[in-house]
């Protein structure tokens, strides 16, 4: 009976998650991640709109008239942006390594993805503190509040991504991450790539489009 109608665990492992029968053919978890990312688009859409509205709103003075675009360091942020984008490459390599069953390489690429993300976060912390030193804090004027909120939300997303990557790393160490879990890594990867793509928009809006 049962064995006649249902896959054995071994077939399961070989099939991986993708092969589960669903009405759409896409696994539940992956579809849920896509839905979540769709929702995230609106979250960042709202935050980016807020920043666009407020990017030149200086306070009435005298000590709150400086806005982030007066003092930011484009080359520095360009480098940290490049680092973040490269982490998408290492994320793909991690997935590819797991698909091949190469656990050593999987862990190496997961760790390097997390570390590149960490470098980006470090750059953001440095940028925030240097802003604070130059007198542009979260509470100074609408432009600075919007800047810190938008980039801060993105930073929190990257940080959560790092937590996920490190969790995968630990799981792999414990031998729980096998080729049948490629989809788990793929889904974390979806999130990670999304966060990167959002940064491309944020970087363009804040650093590349000149303010009058």
């Amino acid at each position, binding site marked *: 009976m049962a064995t006649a109608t249902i896959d054995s665990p071994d077939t399961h492992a070989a099939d991986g998650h993708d092969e589960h029968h669903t009405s759409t053919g896409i696994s539940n978890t992956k579809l849920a991640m896509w839905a979540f990312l769709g929702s995230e688009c609106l979250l960042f859409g709202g935050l980016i709109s807020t920043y666009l509205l407020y990017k030149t709103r200086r306070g009435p003075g005298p000590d709150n008239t400086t806005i982030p675009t007066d003092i930011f360091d484009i080359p520095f942020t360009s480098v940290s942006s490049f680092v973040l984008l490269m982490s998408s490459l290492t994320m793909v390599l991690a997935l590819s390594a797991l698909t091949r069953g190469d656990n050593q390489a999987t862990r190496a690429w997961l760790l390097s993805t997390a570390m590149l993300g960490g470098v980006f976060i470090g750059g953001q912390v440095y940028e925030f503190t240097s802003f604070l030193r130059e007198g542009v804090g*979260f509470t100074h004027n609408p432009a600075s509040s919007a800047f810190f909120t938008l980039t801060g939300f993105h930073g929190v997303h990257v940080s959560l991504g790092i937590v996920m990557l490190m969790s995968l790393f630990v799981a792999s160490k414990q031998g*729980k991450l096998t080729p049948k879990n490629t989809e788990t890594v793929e889904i974390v990867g979806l999130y990670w790539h999304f966060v990167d793509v959002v940064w491309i928009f944020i970087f363009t809006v804040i650093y590349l489009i000149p303010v009058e």
Partner: protein
Amino acid sequence: MAITEEPLALTSGEAATVERPLGALTRPKGGNGWRDWLSTVDHKKIGIMYGVAAMFFFVVGGIEALLIRLQLAAPDGQILSAEVYNQVFTMHGVTMVFLFIMPLAAAFANYLIPLQIGARDVAFPRLNALSFWIWISGAVFLNTSWIVGGGGADCGWFCYSPNSGLAFSPSHGVDFYVIGLQIAGVASLISAANLIVTVLNMRAPGMTLFRMPVLTWMLLVTQFLLLFALPVITVALFLLMFDRLFDAQFFNPETGGDPLLWQHLFWIFGHPEVYIIILPSFGIISEIIPTFSRKPIFGYSFMVFSGIAIGFMGWGVWAHHMFVSGIGPFSVAAFSLSTMFIAVPTGVKILNWLATMWGGKLRFTTAMLFAVGTVAMFTIGGLSGVTHSLAPADSQQTDTYYIVAHFHYVIFGGGVLGLMGGLYFWWPKIFGHCLNEFWGKVHFWVILVGFNLTFGPMHVVGLQGMSRRIDTYAAGYGFEFWNLVATIGSFIIALGVLIFFFNVWKSRRDAADLPAPGPDPWDARSLEWMLPSPTPEHNFDTIPVVESEDEWWHRKYGYDENKRVVRIATIEEAAQDGSATGVHLPAPSFWPLVLALGLPLIGYGLIFNLWLAVVGGALTGLAIYSWALEPVDDPDADHGHGHDDHHDDDDDGGDDHAADDSEPVTAGAEGGE
């Protein structure tokens, strides 16, 4: 017969091969005590809990409404101070929208979606439990502001800035509003993703999208609206929270902040929210009306597509809430036009309901009365809505009782009446006995009369210029009579609600003496009616194979050689008897509850003491990792595969069987050993 008569693929598993996890991470076992309700992941139990909690908050919001009406019954009302009046009308709106109608709709969505698409549970049962517990922790958190926050929020349900800032709203009420709605929003977001995946992925064989019942379709559209609308208000709430708690400068006009930003963000959420409230009710009456007209729904695909059209167009009309906010003539013209257009798909729906009834064999059960009442009352609300698309007229009506009349006709008349009808319709399926029809009809007529007495006169006083949100009015403006009528009407509504509760009690008491309703007391059309009442824990004995729209109806009826409808099977023959045993179901879990308890702690912490937020955050983090590491199943039961995806749920419920595609028998749940 479309059901494949195959034995269920059930195994007892081989416990010896299963690793036993840490004691604390053992999954609880099912039972029937209170622990079972706290740890349940069964979509039906979760649906019932949503319903009970929603009715509780209906009473809370109703008492607030009665206080408002008592204050306004006569000129110069003295019952509430202006300050308390502000809090009461704010909390009335917030409670009714976020803590009554949305969760009551969620109750139907949870209970019915898996049944209507032929599934054993939702896609992520634990996330489903999480949604409920987060929602209720947010709801309780919001209402504790009466006790520990120095009163409720006092900024109106749309909480316009700068009114909502510290300068004008110094108590913690608005903080509770901001954080409470964020918590409730997380719940709705998780639930939306879960139900979308459920509808898209877990349909029974043959249940194509365009064979799904209209209710499932409308609920699907609703979930998409939630998915995309909630993040927008989340942004608005975060900005306001940062302003109030951390001195950010988003809405402070003195430093260049722009109150209009709040209005835009709020209504980009707020207008889709209107359809989030109304579409489930539209879906419910689209099930009730065909059943009691003994006709298929007229223009099924038009019904579905007009629902989808409403879902899309609902995003393009938000600024009609802002015609007097100074958004410029071009914007006003554009949003006027889009508001006129959105009446088209809504009109299509109304015409289709009427055409469904046309020439049908109507049976006016309580459910049908509520459904027809919904169509009638919503039409009135819809027509006054179209008048708002005329910006010059709307400019006169903004902030008057005419608006209050309009949206109560839409939300109460269109939304609540439909949901009430749904309660009467599905009560036997959920609880195994019908509600008393006599008291049901009394309930309906009392509510209908009370409703029209309450909100009808508001059109009049509104056009006479009575402002909403003012705690009292002076004598001599001609407001006295109609306000008194409205107050009387509101108490008649309250009487109607009491009759409903009486009916619930009486029907339960009498149930033992009456014949059981059987699987299908109404001769209905969709799959949930092929199951015994109440629905067995495992839903379907065997997953049905669907061959047409209105599948259940077509299993009972066919056509003879003259194309006349004839019965081809009795209900008992066609229905499942619920006798399957040992169906593998997702195991219960306490972690959703623990996770949800952490969030209000974070909320209190942000307001009163950040250390508390740290404790709440730690609790939440602990719960997330315990959840991820918790075995997919009770180790003594059949064990599936596991993986370490820590941010998502692994117990994919009934779909996860990985059965051979050619084999329609689905045993539900994890692959056997």
